[in-house]
């Protein structure tokens, strides 16, 4: 065990923890209101560990749906992890399947983005990523269970809680920008995702945008020469 890596992973997970706790609490509260037991809520957060899917599952349970429709919806929502898991696989070429299974079971958008903000930290360092992911996962489970018990006491629209995860994603996105091509790709992906989301169901806009933008990235990289410096200050928003 490499305690140094584990500690680093736990510390890097803290911004995610700040985002997951209140969302977990909100989930726990809603799930409780939908009639799930405390144990079911805890187990769902432990085993499913997928924010949007869990909220949607609870809503579907409320509407009296169960079983297959929930499974299919969940599967489609989480297909985007195919892309993230593919990307992460590049950094773990020499690890045992058991370790990879553990890593992949806890893959989320947030932990993926955090890991990719500095890939040199994760390259063949499964302990770092495991610590980062487990800390985030624990925050999610803790949040859900707390929410199930005490959720009624909190106003989720207060204290800027709805903006915690968006702010985290914005910063993680900007940390990815290292050359001019990246700026272009951000603009393209931003525009495409809004366009696709306006007419495609579910999460297909994410998958389609990611595939097209990455393809464009390959096509464009020879035309846009790597810049000496980044343009100053621009946020590249549409």
């Amino acid at each position, binding site marked *: 065990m490499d305690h140094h890596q584990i500690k680093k992973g736990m510390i890097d997970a803290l911004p995610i923890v700040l985002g997951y706790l209140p969302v977990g609490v909100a989930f726990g509260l809603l799930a409780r209101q939908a009639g799930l037991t405390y144990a079911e809520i805890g187990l769902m957060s432990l085993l499913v560990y997928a924010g949007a899917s869990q909220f949607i599952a609870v809503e579907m349970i409320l509407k009296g749906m169960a079983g297959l429709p929930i499974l299919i919806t969940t599967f489609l929502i989480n297909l985007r992890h195919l892309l993230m898991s593919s990307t992460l696989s590049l950094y773990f070429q020499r690890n045992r399947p058991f370790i990879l299974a553990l890593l992949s079971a806890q893959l989320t958008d947030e932990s*993926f983005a955090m890991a990719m903000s500095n890939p040199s930290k994760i390259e063949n360092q499964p302990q770092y990523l495991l610590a980062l992911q487990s800390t985030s996962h624990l925050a999610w489970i803790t949040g859900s269970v707390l929410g199930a018990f005490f959720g009624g006491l909190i106003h989720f629209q207060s204290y800027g809680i709805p903006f915690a995860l968006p702010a985290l994603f914005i910063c993680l996105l900007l940390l990815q920008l290292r050359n001019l091509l990246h700026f272009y790709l951000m603009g393209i992906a931003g525009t495409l995702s809004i366009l696709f989301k306006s007419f495609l169901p579910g999460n297909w806009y994410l998958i389609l945008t990611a595939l097209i933008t990455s393809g464009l990235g390959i096509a464009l990289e020879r035309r846009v020469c790597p810049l000496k410096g980044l343009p100053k200050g621009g946020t590249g928003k549409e």
Partner: protein
Amino acid sequence: MGIVTFLPRFFPMVFLSRWALPEKIKKGLEYFPISILSSIVFPLFFFNGEGRMEIQPHLLLSSIPVFLFAWKVKSLWGSVLLGMAIYWGLGWIF
């Protein structure tokens, strides 16, 4: 549900880590983080919780200082706390 969330996370990790991928695909995978993060972030400002198109002025306004701050300072904690504070503050104003 646990199984269907696990499968898409698991398969690429285990199988792609065994195969040597062609360079082109590896290059494309490098652009996934930017693509995915952009498509998570930007639609947030233009769609409501039910997925219908509707500008979200609070989110949009709060995001501008966070974009600038994150770009200049590159601090995750700072961005999250600043974003929450501004969003909260905006709630008091209108």
